[in-house]
């Protein structure tokens, strides 16, 4: 039982930033939660209003993909925080601190530490070189057709796996929080996502993410303050009580079963850090700001909000050990040694109810739903951009498509992605989809990140190296996850995993780097020479922003 719980929690958290693991613990439909539905309706009306307003401002391709490049650093910082902190952060990490103690805090620092690195090494160059998608950067001086196709394929793979994992998690969560049927929940999420993205493009998506980030920060802070007031706002007081009642006792202060060996710990750290730096929907946010200055500020604000919220979560988790863990009301049959009603992920929700009644529970439920919508909208937009901007406009039409045509394709793609998400969400309802987020992060770290960083930093990169290295990273990440315990044993039912670790990044990422570098070095074709020659101009633009995409005037 304990081993299964570990697998469940690992599934929930190791793959990061998703509540995909919710799907593992089959959720039970709860009675209709009227407070939650009321607040959710309020949120939806507000965001639909914004979408209506945004639709009037979404005329050009730049408006659609990047909100015209006119978002400020502060707004973008909030939006990034909204894009980055999913329901897993709120529900999964609280549950993890509640059941495992300080292990949860160790995961949180791994989620956080990628941000300073993104700022120091990437933010400015991303803004100076990119326009709509990160493939604009990787294909800047390389063969448009081949490099864009590769980038679009890996982007879409990341987006699809991530999207399906989110949808399955969303269906389970909504069933649990709102008492809605799984299929209906998927249609609601899919339909709202299509409306936001198709009509409002990046403007609406950004505002949905900003509002959601504010709700999440406010809701979490309120619960934390109310909970801490029960301990006289004393950390010592809180910990003394938590340790005295927790079944693990003092062990909650030590690293436990979630980081079983150095390889897993290191691979997880690498995957989270560099996977974040290769996620298409996160990278896309860097093209929405006015210039490199604002891009840097975005990271400053985003990482500040993320760091703050993780510490709130830590306190919530520890407080829940006493407030939720000692209250029979939240356990099946009123037995505090038994199962928590609704499963482990409900700890944060129970805590909200315990300290703030049904009203706060309703608010936090609405926050969770808003969180799902914000994340899937960002994903759908990134996927649509890969289809319409990279594949349709640049590869199929060779840059000759008009803006109207490109926009039409991107809107059709958003609708298409919405339908795919709903259909796959329904198909995967009963399946363990935790591996899909592991896969998304693994691919982002192994296929997107190496090519992206080398294209910005290394003169020697050639088309042949980028394409072969990118595909090798993609295939390696997929294979390692396929042969790992989470798919080979848990999903496919084999007895023994062929690849011993659940996290692929430590192996697939260096492999992708190695292949890209070796193939590039061996490439002495005329095209390769020309590509290297163009690096110097690209380098000046990356450093100075001269010639970078400008914000469109409104």
């Amino acid at each position, binding site marked *: 039982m304990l081993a299964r719980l570990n697998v469940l929690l690992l599934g929930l958290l190791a793959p990061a930033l998703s509540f995909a693991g919710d799907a593992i613990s089959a959720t039970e439909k709860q009675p209709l939660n009227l407070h939650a539905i009321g607040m959710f309706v309020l949120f939806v009306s507000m965001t639909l209003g914004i979408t209506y307003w945004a639709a009037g401002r979404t005329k050009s391709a730049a408006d659609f993909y990047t909100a015209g490049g006119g978002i400020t650093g502060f707004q973008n910082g909030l939006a990034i925080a909204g894009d980055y902190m999913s329901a897993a952060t709120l529900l999964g990490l609280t549950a993890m601190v509640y059941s495992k103690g300080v292990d949860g805090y*160790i995961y949180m620092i791994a989620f*956080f*530490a990628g941000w300073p690195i993104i700022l120091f090494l990437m933010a400015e160059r991303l803004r100076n070189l990119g326009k709509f998608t990160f493939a604009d950067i990787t294909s800047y001086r390389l063969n448009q057709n081949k490099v864009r196709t590769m980038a679009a394929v890996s982007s879409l793979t990341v987006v699809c796996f991530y999207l399906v994992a989110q949808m399955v998690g969303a269906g389970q969560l909504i069933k649990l929080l709102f008492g809605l049927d799984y299929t209906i929940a998927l249609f609601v999420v899919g339909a709202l996502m299509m409306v936001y993205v198709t009509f409002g493009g990046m403007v609406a998506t950004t505002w949905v993410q900003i509002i959601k980030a504010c709700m999440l920060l406010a809701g979490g802070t309120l619960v934390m303050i109310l909970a801490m007031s029960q301990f006289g706002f004393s950390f010592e007081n809180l910990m003394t009580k938590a340790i005295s009642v927790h079944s693990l006792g003092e062990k909650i*202060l*030590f690293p436990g079963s979630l980081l079983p060996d150095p390889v897993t710990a290191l691979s997880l750290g690498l995957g989270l850090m560099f996977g974040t730096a290769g996620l298409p929907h996160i990278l896309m946010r860097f093209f929405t700001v006015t210039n490199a200055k604002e891009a840097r500020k975005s990271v400053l604000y985003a*990482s500040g909000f993320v760091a703050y919220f993780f510490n709130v979560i830590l306190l919530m988790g520890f407080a829940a050990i006493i407030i939720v863990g000692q209250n029979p009301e939240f356990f099946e049959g009123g037995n505090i040694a038994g199962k928590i009603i609704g499963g482990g992920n409900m700890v944060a929700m129970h805590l909200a109810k315990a300290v703030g009644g049904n009203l706060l529970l309703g608010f936090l439920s609405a926050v969770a739903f808003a969180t799902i919508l914000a994340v899937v909208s960002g994903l759908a937009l990134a996927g649509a951009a890969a289809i319409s901007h990279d594949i349709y406009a640049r590869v199929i039409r060779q840059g000759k498509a008009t803006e109207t045509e490109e926009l039409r394709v991107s809107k059709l793609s958003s609708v298409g992605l919405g339908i795919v998400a709903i259909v796959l969400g329904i198909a995967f309802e009963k399946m363990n989809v935790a591996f899909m987020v592991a896969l998304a992060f693994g691919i982002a770290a192994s296929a997107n990140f190496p090519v992206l960083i080398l294209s910005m930093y290394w003169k020697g990169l050639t088309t042949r190296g980028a394409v072969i290295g990118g595909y090798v990273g993609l295939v390696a990440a997929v294979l390692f996850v396929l042969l790992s315990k989470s798919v080979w044993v848990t999903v496919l039912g084999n007895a023994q995993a062929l690849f011993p670790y659940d996290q692929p990044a430590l192996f697939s990422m260096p492999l992708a780097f190695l292949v890209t570098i070796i193939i590039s070095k061996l490439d002495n074709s005329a095209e390769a020479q020309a590509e290297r020659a163009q690096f110097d101009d690209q380098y*000046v633009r990356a450093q100075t922003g*001269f010639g970078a995409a400008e914000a469109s005037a409104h």
Partner: protein
Amino acid sequence: MSSTSSQRAVYARIRSNPRFAELVSKRQGFATLLSVVVLTIFYGFFMVVAFTPNVIGQRLSEGSYVTVGIAAELFMFIFFWVLTAVYVKRANGEFDDITTEIVRDAAKEVK
């Protein structure tokens, strides 16, 4: 994405400006230094977690529940964020001033 010939001329001028080399080496050196600091502390902490997990749970003082692990992590959250603030301040101030100057000079001379 090809640049126009006048853009290329500006790029060439910027490259030949010694201030550009100075800007790049200063900013890149600073960014690299900060990255190395973050990566060393972060992976150093993960090595402690992986190889000597008992250290993490040790209390800083008798009778307090602030452990080495909790203190180290809180320190990382705050310190890493302060480093981002330091970088943003210097890049958006000092470095961007030099950048603006270099670009203006190059654009002027090309015209």
